């Protein structure tokens, strides 16, 4: 039995998750700028190059980065899993994915050699990170529902990376076949629901009762939901490949459980014991509303020749997943700063609530939600696209400022002498 499996030293240094967190809003901003210079007619097609570039700037650069950063932090704390060579892996996978994504944006927009370079960067970075996480999870003895959900989401993440690399490679050649469109369908649904969705569900089993003293999730929910959703995702794969007419059944199955999750989150927040209603609670509620709308629209879209699929992506990718990620950043970053400083013996630290300006976080929230609503209606009123993109860009700039503020506090305090010498507590290797 691993007896050293429990220590503050096992958590990675603050730089490991934080570099992912502070880079995410920059890619959010880039996506906003790309949307600003686009037009709604082009973005209505999910297979236009602009749509693919913008989608991946957000899904890899914003969502992927926050999820990977959070996982490096959560695996030791929530799960007790130690990632091998976490400092090395976090640093170099970050560099590889960042470069890979930049090359992907340039490569797809200009159709040149950058696409090949992006394949190397993205495949190397993601597989290094996911491989390290898989090794860490292999050593876990206590297989809780959260561990199962994280493991499942990492499985889906690995498969979508492989599919993504295949699709990216196929873009080096202009002939996109029907077969590649099928792979793209599996890739996108598995990414949103298999990686993002299952990860959020698994973490929420712990986070909602912990941070908001909300009622615990029912045993059925914790034990079965991840498997039920995974079954739906595999049905999606099988039907997409062999019986396309039946994909509606898999879609309804997946959407049903995500809608149930959205409703459960809403009800649990209503029954939470913690009376505080901060911006993170607003983000959870927003995610719940957008996920419900998105789940229904996804089914509805089936009967309208997929006209609304980009709207579904805005509702679920933006309204559900981005909302949860931002809400989580507002809790995690100030806590990490406080935790690491306090652990080093600094006692005169601002409280978590003092590290991020509350009014700015509210302004960021409002701009973000308005931008999403604007994106949805821009399908009918094209002029809204530019205004919404502008609101989205400003919300990302404010988010970056809000995330960097606690980091600057950390940098400032760490230059001073600690109130206590904590070297006695440091783990001896």
């Amino acid at each position, binding site marked *: *039995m691993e*007896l*050293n*499996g*429990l*220590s*503050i*030293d096992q958590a990675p240094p603050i730089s490991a998750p934080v570099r992912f967190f502070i880079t995410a809003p920059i890619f959010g901003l880039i996506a906003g700028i790309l949307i600003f210079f686009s037009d709604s007619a082009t973005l209505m097609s999910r297979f236009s190059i602009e749509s693919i570039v913008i989608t991946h700037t957000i899904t890899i650069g914003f969502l992927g980065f926050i999820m990977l950063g959070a996982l490096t932090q959560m695996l030791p*704390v*929530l*799960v*007790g899993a130690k990632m091998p060579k976490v400092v090395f892996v976090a640093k170099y996978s970050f560099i590889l994915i960042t470069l890979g994504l930049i090359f992907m944006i340039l490569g797809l927009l200009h159709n040149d050699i950058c696409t090949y370079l992006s394949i190397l960067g993205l495949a190397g970075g993601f597989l290094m990170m996911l491989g390290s996480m898989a090794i860490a999870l292999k050593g876990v*003895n*206590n297989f*809780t529902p959260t561990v199962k959900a994280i493991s499942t989401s990492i499985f889906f993440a690995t498969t979508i990376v492989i599919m993504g690399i295949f699709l990216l490679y196929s873009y080096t050649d202009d002939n996109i076949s029907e077969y590649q469109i099928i792979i793209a369908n599996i890739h996108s649904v598995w990414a949103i629901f298999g990686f993002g969705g299952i990860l959020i569900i698994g973490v929420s089993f*712990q986070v909602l009762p*912990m*941070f908001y*003293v909300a009622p615990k999730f029912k045993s059925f929910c914790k034990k079965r939901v991840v498997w039920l959703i995974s079954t739906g995702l595999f049905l999606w794969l099988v039907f997409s490949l062999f019986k396309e007419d039946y994909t509606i059944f898999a879609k309804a199955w997946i959407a049903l459980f995500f809608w149930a999750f959205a409703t459960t989150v809403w009800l649990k927040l209503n029954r939470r*014991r*913690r*009376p*505080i209603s901060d911006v993170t609670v607003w983000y959870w509620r927003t995610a719940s509303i957008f996920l419900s709308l998105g789940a229904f629209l996804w089914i509805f879209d089936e009967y309208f020749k997929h006209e609304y699929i980009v709207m579904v992506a805005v509702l679920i990718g933006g309204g559900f997943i981005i909302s949860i990620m931002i809400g989580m950043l507002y*809790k995690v970053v100030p*806590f990490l700063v*406080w*935790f690491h400083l*306090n*652990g080093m013996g600094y*006692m005169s630290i*601002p*409280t*978590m*609530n*003092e590290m991020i300006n509350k009014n700015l976080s509210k302004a960021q929230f409002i701009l973000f939600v308005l931008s999403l609503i604007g994106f949805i209606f821009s399908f009918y009123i094209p002029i809204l696209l530019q205004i919404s993109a502008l609101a989205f860009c400003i919300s990302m700039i404010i988010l970056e400022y809000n995330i960097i503020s606690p980091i600057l506090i950390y940098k400032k305090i760490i230059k001073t002498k600690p109130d206590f010498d*904590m070297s006695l*507590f440091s*783990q*001896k290797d």
Partner: protein
Amino acid sequence: MSTIKEFLTNDHSKCDEIFASMEEEAVKSLENTRPLCEEFIAQTEKHFQMEERVMFLEFETKTGMTQGPTMMMRQEHTQMRALMKDMLNAIEINNKDKFFGYSETLMILLQQHNMKEEQMLYPMAQQHLSAESDRIVDMMSSLTAQ
């Protein structure tokens, strides 16, 4: 009789319950929060002492590990004791913002600490101390906080 893991996990829930009541009261007014805050601190301190004066010592004697998980848990107890004192001071000066700043930080620190204990340390302790489980639970329940 409950196992070490069950006994200490249930005690975490008791502390959480008082913490939630304390915050509920604090939203209305800090003036009436002091008794609940003191009750929370007393209950949490008793829990820390059950661990530090009984379970951790037994675990360390049995495994020979004094520099491992128990040391880190003690460090986090120290961090939490300081935050609990800060919360009382915030009540003293009637500063809601400060109070909720400390309670928020304590809440997250406490929960991630409890999770590490419940998911890792307690199962380890239960495994190593299973033969003496009843005696250890008895000693912990009869402990009076100092």
